[in-house]
């Protein structure tokens, strides 16, 4: 399994994760080790095996589409890092 620093940079960008140069170096080595170890699962033949995404027989939980009283909007806005006019503020995304 070849994990290069470029792979690590590429994946960190996908994950929107800032990592330092030291972490980049460390993760290159550690992820290569871990991925080499998990290769073990490739020994098994699984062509006709269904995946288990969910372990219990509970499917399609739905509810009626009714308006209900939720938690106070203010309570959520109070814990946000930056709020203006009752809305979350993010840096400008359209030039």
């Amino acid at each position, binding site marked *: 399994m070849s994990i290069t620093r470029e*792979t*690590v940079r590429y*994946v*960190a960008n*996908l*994950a*929107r*994760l*800032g*990592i*330092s140069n030291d*972490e980049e170096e*460390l*993760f290159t080595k*550690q*992820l290569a*080790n*871990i*991925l080499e*170890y*998990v*290769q*073990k*699962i*490739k020994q*098994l033949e*699984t062509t006709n*095996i*269904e*995946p*288990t*995404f*969910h*372990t*219990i027989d*509970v499917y399609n*939980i739905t*509810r009626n589409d009714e308006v209900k009283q939720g*938690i*106070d909007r203010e*309570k*959520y806005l*109070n*814990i*946000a*890092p*930056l709020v203006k006019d009752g809305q*979350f503020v*993010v*840096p*400008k*995304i359209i030039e």
Partner: protein
Amino acid sequence: MIDKSAKELIEEIDKKSINAKEVINFYKQRIDKHNSLINAFINTTIIDGDGVPIGIKDNICTEGVETTCASKILKGFIPPYDATVVKLLKEADFTIMGKTNLDEFAMGSSTENSSFFITKNPWNLDYVPGGSSGGSAAAVAARLVPWALGSDTGGSIRQPAAFCGVTGLKPTYGLVSRFGLVAFGSSLDQIGPITITAYDAALLLEIIASYDKNDSTSIPGNRRKYTQALNGDIKGLKIGIPKEYFIEGIEKDVKERVLEAIELLKSLGATVENISLPHTEYAVPVYYLVATAEASSNLSRFDGVQYGLRIEKENLIAMYKETRRAGFGSEVKRRIMLGTYALSSGYYDAYYLKAQKVRSLIKQDFLESFKKVDVIITPTSPTVAFKIGEKVDDPLSMYLSDIFTISVNLAGIPAISIPCGFDKNNLPVGLQIIGPALSEEIILKVADIYQRNTNWHRMIPKTFLDG
């Protein structure tokens, strides 16, 4: 009072031989006196109730009380609602004594990954308490609370319970609501009790297990009266011993203590059969692909917009990246990286999907075994507690300390860890009892009858014996 289980405290309060305020004060004083020795609690804000004290792992939301997941990204986060389990505890009038330490976002096996401080094992302060629910297990072992809640994604209740010499139950997936539990691996996570006795685990499970419309994975229908199943009778019970769990690398004392416990259960009327769970060796690799994939998705919510830490930057992507760089610790970043890689274009089929198929084989092993036996008994961990710092630089060796607990989460079934003696250095050994889905009554009954005939679960580390 220190030697009383939660059940015994409740009985004394009901008889009015002590009152609840005395009990609460007693434990408050113990926390004030001893917590600094082991750092079991992140905060000790008491949430008023008029009943027996309890500790709550700090990845479970408590309205109005800081909930950090031991992460810098959630430092100062005050949840606007209670987790369903917390709501149920409040309705039952429990007194929440504080929030317990954990590996950041429950990712780890030693509680060394907490961003704040390391929790120590009450049996020997140079050793880890296990993890990720290390704070809850250490708090119960040191009798800073008579019981606590933990969460278990790959062994995070059972392994610390084993390392700290207490009882820990991972319920069937879907039995206890996860609403308000900060999500790590959503197809694996369950909340469960960490207690002195199996009876207390049954009692606490009765309180927290319920159908919850706010958790779409919650199993519909009523829950059982688990304490009523503890009738002290295991005549004819069939115990399976899987050969894959008694392999090279398991410590001699651990193996001997577990085999002694099995002999005792035989003398109480159980029969023993050797079985095989042939895909056991694939459980750790499957887990570290599935759990990290789910974690990378779940943790995308920590982006500096709605709550938690935010590092201001000129554009949105830079703000996300800097917030997450500053907020997440090393292990969390490593798992986000691994999970993102496993889900990324070109690797999804080879890693994530393949792992979910192998997971079916692991689950099938259990289904086949439970046609022959009622419960499966194994060591909870191949070793007793290890030294602080011993595995911190080698993620893979840390992951392998969960080798005996992970399969249970992958299969969605319940298991309990109970103390079954000590090794030569006086560190506790844990015994794991695994049952089929929704067999909590059976595994609790086996744990209970073992505890009726042994005293390991009543042992208290001598530093904490006062009072």
